[in-house]
């Protein structure tokens, strides 16, 4: 029975890690190429989730709502880039923190003004609401499996885009040495807007896939933003490979921590104390992971410049 639980938690970790990767992929590129600390990245995730939830209610079809929501969020992202963020690339990190903090305030409050205080809930699409028996005794939610499939497919597509295409070459050149890429004639302005649009689309995809599992509410962006930044730093700023491996690592460590630390503690500590400390230790695990990684590799696991 325990190995089934273990496998199930592995799948949960993989699913969470892949969704985290969608957020982190955009964040690390924006961070690495444009040298921009974008605190408002989580807001795009929130906007994406809200838009998909709204489109689902309007069209009645989750499948139709997802591409609509992604496209709309990408447009929102590109508009924000062109209007606000473009003026921030040459500024220091502190100004960027202040400006993107301001964007969070505006995004959260606008969301509240448009959709109200009530959180939105979305049902799992009917076709995927059942569970699949992967192994004898291991039943796993079909929707979570679909999330894993989408995550893997997008990761593969991003890999091909970044490693095999001309655009990807420009992106990698920008991430490892921005000034040299500009000197070689890369149209950085266009590239930045495009990367930001892709980053926003990935945020919306993550928001869309997770929205039936979570509650769509204001503030959902900030709670995952910290996790995303931790992942960026663990993976190495600007590195896609680092983002992928870092996201899986954080996803699995976080899931395992939540699933296994409390029962493990209960075997060695008095139950009252273990019940109190377990969830906190689980929440701390990813930060400990980051401190350990930074201690061992101060530039993250896969520094982009090297």
């Amino acid at each position: 029975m325990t190995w089934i639980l273990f496998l199930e938690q592995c799948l949960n970790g993989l699913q969470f890690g892949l969704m985290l990767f969608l957020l982190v992929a955009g964040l690390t590129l924006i961070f690495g190429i444009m040298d921009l600390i974008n605190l408002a990245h989580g807001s795009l995730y929130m906007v994406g989730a809200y838009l998909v939830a709204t489109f689902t209610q309007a069209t009645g079809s989750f499948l139709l709502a997802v591409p609509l929501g992604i496209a709309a969020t990408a447009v929102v992202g590109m508009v924000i880039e062109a209007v606000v963020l473009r003026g921030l690339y040459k500024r220091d990190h502190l100004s960027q923190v202040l400006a993107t903090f301001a964007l969070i305030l505006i995004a959260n409050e606008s969301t509240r003004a448009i959709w109200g205080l009530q959180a939105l809930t979305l049902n799992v699409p009917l076709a995927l609401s059942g569970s699949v028996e992967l192994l004898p005794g291991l039943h796993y939610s079909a929707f979570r499996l679909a999330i894993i499939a989408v995550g893997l497919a997008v990761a593969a597509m991003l890999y091909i885009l970044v490693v095999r295409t001309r655009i990807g070459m420009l992106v990698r050149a920008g991430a490892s040495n921005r000034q040299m890429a500009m000197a070689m004639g890369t149209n950085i302005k266009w590239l930045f807007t495009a990367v930001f649009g892709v980053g926003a689309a990935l945020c919306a995809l993550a928001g869309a896939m997770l929205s039936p599992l979570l509650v769509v509410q204001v503030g959902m962006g900030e709670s995952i933003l910290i996790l995303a930044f931790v992942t960026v730093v663990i993976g190495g700023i600007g590195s896609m490979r680092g983002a992928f491996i870092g996201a899986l690592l954080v996803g699995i460590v976080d899931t395992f921590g939540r699933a296994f630390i409390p029962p493990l503690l209960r075997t060695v500590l008095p139950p009252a104390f273990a019940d109190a400390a377990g969830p906190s230790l689980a929440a701390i695990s990813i930060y400990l992971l980051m401190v350990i990684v930074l201690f061992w590799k101060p530039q993250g696991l896969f520094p982009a410049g090297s």
Partner: protein
Amino acid sequence: MIWLTRHGWLVAACLFALAFPMLATAVGQDFYISVASRVLIWGLLATSLNLLVGTGGMVSMGHAAFFGFGAYVVGIIALDAPQWSAAPVVLPLAIAATGILAFVVGAICLRTRGVYFIMITLAFAQMLFYIFVSLKGYGGDDGLPLAKRSPLGTLKMADDTVFYYVVLTLLALCLVFLARLRDSRFGRVLRGIKDNEIRMESLGYATLRFKLTAFVIAGAMAGLAGALMANQNGFVSPNMLYWDLSGTALVMVILGGLGSLWGGLAGAVVFMVLEEVLTGFTSHWQIILGLILLGVVFFAPKGIAGLFARKSR
């Protein structure tokens, strides 16, 4: 007389701060005295962060850890060792305990730089946040209420006006201390490190020691601010260590003016007053606040202190 014209704003601000409780009572708005105390405490927190970020160039995203830790020192002593809960005992204790915490955290974090420093300070603050959430004996998630404010001699601390003057005095002492620190050798070395750390190192300064000292001073001062906030609110909770509090303090510093002695306080005052005024206008005041902050980034890059500096020149 020249001194007076040059420092006209400062003198006016000090007089206003001294007279504030009388003014508030005169117009029948006693409620605002405790709001003002809260503004001053936020100002103390932002001022301590400004020493770190503005003077020392160390952008910390985990300053709330020290603020909340100082608050919890007051809360835990009031619960477990009430005989020590007098302000002359508990405030220095909060400062010392937070200073030690800052020493440990700083010694580890200061090995990294730039963005990595931002993230690792954030990580430590989040870890402390979850530790205090798990301390069920001290309220856990729900926080810990205080029975009364830390007594100080024969003063009636429960009276908001008395407490306001206590906070104001402590803030003034901290500002005087920081003003002296800025002009001392220590302050000059710290600014030198901010400009170019390698240069200071090759000049023979043990830069890590200077940075760590600044980190401890800033942490201890944030601990004092937290201890005062615990007294002001009569309540401590893990939210006082949460990262959005660090973010708000950082925004106040940038808003007020990096590296300026008054920057932290000015930022806190403007931020809190804006919040107070805008909530009166519309429930969606955060949109306006966001737009104002964006305006500051694009049109007043040196913060409020920068605006005043330009005028006086």
